[in-house]
């Protein structure tokens, strides 16, 4: 299959179809409405079902119902709608149901606006709903990566019986790039004997629930969940590094911001400044290894985000006091430019240039 030129939101939808997702429940919201419309048109073509729910609350609970039958199912939304899904997401975790949930983040808080943002980082990585839980969060930065991560997201969901979040921003959703949909080599088989599809032929009734009235039993259930999260932390960490080997300073950025940061890094390198990039792809589990490998030799890190500083908390934890962590961010839907990031690099690392030039 060759490359096709598509919009980010539609790429995500088509990738889900390629991953054998046949059920979608959602509610329209900008800037991800193309995803909803694409599913409405595409799913019936492949024998699937698209249903526009009356709200995001209903949509996530329809996802819960469909997931309980063992099929691959997805919903998508943007920040205000994603907030409404939190209760349902907590129930999906509690009942151990697989599903893929997309958040194409826009400016907040409140109704905010429809411009690109990363201000839901806390919400997606630190729980969001009630209870002690984590969900794998994947943050693509190119349209091809949307394809690959969306396909992986469904496998991760099935493997762990857990919801998985794909987090993007409006810029990624709206941009067009050529992508290639690779046919799946082989469908991985996942055990679905837990699915409530009726008892015909399989003995006694099955129950899907997150309720456990007895404290000791609920603690046991939580312990099992924590084991699962620990396994995810072992197995599902993804990141990319760029020019970190000799770097004096390392920028940390994800999603579209990482693309802009990379240009700023190239410009800085042209002037002789040794700047690198760590790009977390899984926001949870957060990649700690690239920090462990660099934190003793670099002079510092700069977290660059489309938020007032959220990922920086995880960066600080990963750096663990070994080096200073600086920050540059824009909020409200303002996208940081390459020049701004370059300026920040100069402010933080510019002294080095002076040192180099004067042979200090």
């Amino acid at each position: 299959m060759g490359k096709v030129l598509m919009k980010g939101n539609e790429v995500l939808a088509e990738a889900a179809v390629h991953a054998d997702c046949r059920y979608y429940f959602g509610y329209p919201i900008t800037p991800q409405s193309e995803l909803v419309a694409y599913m409405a048109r595409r799913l019936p073509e492949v024998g699937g079902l698209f249903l526009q729910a009356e709200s995001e609350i209903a949509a996530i609970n329809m996802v819960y119902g469909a997931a309980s039958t063992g099929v691959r199912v997805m919903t998508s939304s943007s920040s205000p709608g994603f907030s409404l899904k939190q209760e349902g997401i907590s129930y999906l975790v509690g009942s151990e149901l697989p599903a893929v949930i997309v958040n194409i983040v826009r400016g907040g808080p409140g109704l905010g606006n429809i411009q690109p943002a990363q201000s839901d980082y806390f919400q997606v990585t630190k729980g969001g709903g009630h209870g002690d839980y984590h969900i794998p969060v994947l943050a693509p930065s190119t349209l091809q990566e949307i394809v690959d991560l969306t396909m992986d997201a469904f496998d991760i969901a099935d493997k762990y019986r857990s919801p998985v979040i794909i987090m993007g921003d409006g810029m990624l959703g709206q941009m067009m790039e050529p992508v290639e949909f690779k046919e799946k080599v082989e469908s991985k088989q996942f055990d679905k004997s837990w699915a409530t599809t009726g008892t015909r032929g399989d003995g006694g009734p099955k129950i899907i629930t997150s309720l456990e009235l007895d404290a000791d039993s609920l603690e046991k259930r939580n312990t099992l969940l924590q084991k699962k999260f620990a396994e995810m932390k072992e197995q599902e960490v993804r990141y990319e590094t760029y020019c970190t080997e000799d770097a004096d300073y390392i920028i940390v950025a994800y999603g579209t911001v990482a693309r802009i940061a990379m240009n700023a890094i190239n410009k800085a390198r042209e002037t002789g400044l040794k700047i690198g990039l760590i790009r977390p792809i899984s926001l949870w589990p957060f990649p700690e290894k690239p920090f462990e490998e660099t934190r003793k030799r670099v002079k510092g890190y700069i977290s660059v985000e489309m938020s007032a500083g959220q990922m920086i908390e995880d960066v600080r934890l990963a750096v663990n006091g070994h080096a200073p962590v600086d920050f540059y961010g824009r909020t409200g839907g303002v996208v940081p430019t390459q020049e701004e990031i370059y300026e920040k690099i100069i402010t933080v690392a510019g002294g080095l240039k002076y040192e180099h030039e004067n042979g200090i």
Partner: protein
Amino acid sequence: MSMKTVFERTTGLTEKPTHYCPGCTHGLIHRLVGEVLEEMDILEDTIGVAAVGCSVLSYEYFNCDMTQAAHGRAPAVATGIKRVLPNRFIFTYQGDGDLASIGISEIIHAAARGEKITVIFVNNAIYGMTGGQMAPTSLIGQKTATTPDGRNASVQGLPIRVSEMLATLDGSAYIERVSTHDVPHILKAKKAIRKAFETQKQGLGLSLVEVLSTCPTNWGLDPHESLDWVRDAMIPVYPLGVYKNEAGGN
């Protein structure tokens, strides 16, 4: 002399003893649903959705596959299941706080879409599980934990008549309100539940049976007085009868 079996436990229910208070009609309504599922021979093809309320543990009592939903969201969960498995029987079992308050949006839209599911709606005019607070179905003047002086229309508004309201939606196919206060009415309630599942079988749209039920514990009445209260106080506000019958017949 040989003994004749006159009453048997329905296979529609598990053997687990229920946790309901003495005189509560939740258990009785469970039995009616269980008997209907058994008699229609559809237990193996049925998936029930338990709601949040005193009946939250109904997933342990119904002898079929069960999924537990968040408070009020059972019709959305049922929609998700039915859309994937159109040939299975899907039912929800919801209280009046669950369905008529927090979940009013989900039930209205499930009815509007004509979801081919069956809803067992237990109206006991109060929140049982959380300790007897006002429900949208509480009667004017009814004393509850959150209306200590009685429900006052000018402050707390007026009771919602769910059956009448949902009957106005074109997607609903069978709607009947029944009661559990005496044996003839219980038998009628069972017939209504049967009819609701038959409606689902025919794929006509949403079927709902509103069952007037007791909560002696939170009403502050004994079981017998509770049955009388259903008859004398509730039925005048919630008239029994068939509100929608797309299948025809009775």
